[in-house]
């Protein structure tokens, strides 16, 4: 369920004018921006962008980019986008912006959607960037990571419930051989070969994979994610683990991403706003429940204590809070 609180009645024209007023003069009235945009759903935001363009002959997004700054700016500029567009933009930024592709974003793009949703994101990406998501991921990564990431964004998974038990069993064995065999005894070494893991994770349907993971645990006495546990500097193994966790339980996986971001473990700020912004209209409520369960404090409290200023106010608004101004 969404955490976003948006009114039924609204006037895009009035909102556009109120936003314009917020930009005028010295400084920017960020509170007004948070109050308006933080309470509008995707359809409403689209109408506001249109109205703003019509009245002021300016792109609202450009205006926001020039008036705001820092984490707050990034969050708002992602939020204002239509959800499909946003995923394409996030993927692009993950690939192009840093010297190293942020594989976690690509995995989220690939694994938290249905096959059709992934397609709409790829189309949006092509429209925005005049190249395909696959070619950009491919040309900015190398080796096993490349094979894996390209495969998981290219696949058009079968979405039925059918599973083949025999195949699940044999693939659980194949995975075991590749994971444990390639390490020369004991954990911590890098995988020697990953062909079959990549094949299985990037082509099989989700129900089939879940059955396979179950068999894995039965056969090897240890969950597949634990077997891949090891050297955090081995990015590729980390990516495989992340993918498997996301397949098994996307909400629990995302909650962990958020927690790590809050605790400054691994990659920084980006993940927190990315997850909140992309899920506020979808299923952030369930994620909050998982977060509370796993961490003993609510996500709202965590955000309130670990972030500050307008950025904090915006995130809390998206989380469904009304009373912190």
């Amino acid at each position, binding site marked *: 369920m969404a955490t976003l609180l948006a009114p039924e009645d609204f006037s895009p024209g009035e909102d556009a004018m109120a936003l314009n007023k917020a930009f005028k003069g010295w400084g920017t009235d960020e509170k007004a921006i948070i109050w308006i945009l933080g309470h509008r759903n995707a359809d409403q935001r689209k109408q506001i962008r249109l109205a703003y363009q019509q009245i002021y002959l300016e792109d609202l997004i450009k205006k926001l980019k020039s008036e705001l700054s820092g984490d707050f700016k990034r969050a708002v500029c992602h939020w204002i986008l239509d959800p499909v567009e946003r995923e394409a933009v996030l993927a692009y930024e993950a690939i192009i912006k840093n010297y190293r592709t942020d594989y976690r974003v690509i995995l989220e793009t690939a694994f938290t959607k249905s096959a059709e949703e992934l*397609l709409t994101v790829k189309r949006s990406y092509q429209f925005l960037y005049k190249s395909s998501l696959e070619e950009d991921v*491919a040309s900015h990564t190398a080796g096993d990571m490349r094979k894996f990431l*390209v495969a998981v964004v290219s*696949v058009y998974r079968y979405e039925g419930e059918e599973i083949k038990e025999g195949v699940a069993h044999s693939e659980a064995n194949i995975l075991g051989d590749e994971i444990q065999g390639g390490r020369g005894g004991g954990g911590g070494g890098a995988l020697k070969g990953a062909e079959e893991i990549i094949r299985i994770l990037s082509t099989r349907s989700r129900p089939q994979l879940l059955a396979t993971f179950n068999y894995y645990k039965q056969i090897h006495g240890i969950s597949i994610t634990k077997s891949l546990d090891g050297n955090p500097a081995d990015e590729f193994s980390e990516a495989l683990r992340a993918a498997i966790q996301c397949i098994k339980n996307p909400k629990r996986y995302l909650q962990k991403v958020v927690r790590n971001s809050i605790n400054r473990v691994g990659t920084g700020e980006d993940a927190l706003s990315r997850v909140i912004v992309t899920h506020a209209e979808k299923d952030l409520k369930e994620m909050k429940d998982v977060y509370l369960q796993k961490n003993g404090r609510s996500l709202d409290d965590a955000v309130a204590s670990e972030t500050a200023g307008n950025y904090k106010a915006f995130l809390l608004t998206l989380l469904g809070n009304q009373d912190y101004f």
Partner: protein
Amino acid sequence: MALSHEFQALTKSFSGFGVDEKSMISVLGKWHKDDIKSYRKESPHFVQDDRLFEKWVDHHVDFLKHEFLRLKNAVVLWTMHPWERDARLMKEAIDGPQAYGVIIEVACTRSSEELLGARRAYHSLFDHSIEEDIAYRVNDSHRKLLVGLVSSYRYEGTKVHEEIVKSEAKILCAAIKNADRKNPIEDEEVVRIVTTRSKPHLKAIFQHFKGINENLDGESTFDKTMQCLCTPQTYFSKVLDASLRHGADENTKVALTRVIVTRADEEDMKEIKEEYHKQHGVSLSKKIDDEVNGNFKDFLLTLIARGE
């Protein structure tokens, strides 16, 4: 009394490419039991059994079966939705003896949306994704290329970055030159470029090859892939020619139906015909008229002539 030219006519009517129904009917329709018996004694399609009767040679019956089925196959394929058509073609190619050529052909010569449609159809027809089936069945060096080709959702705009074209053309060139030591399709960069770049981009790369006299017109998987992506009409013209040669095997012959039925309504049929004429000095229609028989021939010729 049956005449020897009638024997010849009958044998001819079911020995070629497609069956000549008219001939068969006019001959067999008149013959009496004795005529047929004489035919059996003389025809190479029958042998003397040790139980003292002339029996059909089994592989001729098989041959006949294929030939009689050609029209039915063509008609069924023609009336099918293109997505189902491509999905079934690929399924057959995966299940059968490793006919990677068909997988490459379908994956590379269809538009992004057409290929996507075929993948959807494959889900609903076979309860699997095509990626998983290919990945599972293909265990050799072809796997990465084939899975990549079939999963591609290429950008279809015309925008091309010249500098990237140049640098990737260099990479492919180097891989081709090194082909004796390492098959280009096992090279990661080759697979990346060929399975993710847009067709205009690849065509631009192909232009660079022509500049250095690399025609990529061999039979290797890499050459076939590049042909399908960059010069499909050349590829199709070659496949058609091979199917019409004497002594072609079934897998090669079946391409005639497949190519004509799948391309008849596409813009490239015209180009394929032009390319065929250019390469072989005779029009495709004439060649088909000479080499193929019966209703099957008529159907093919009608399909090719559309839009003229």
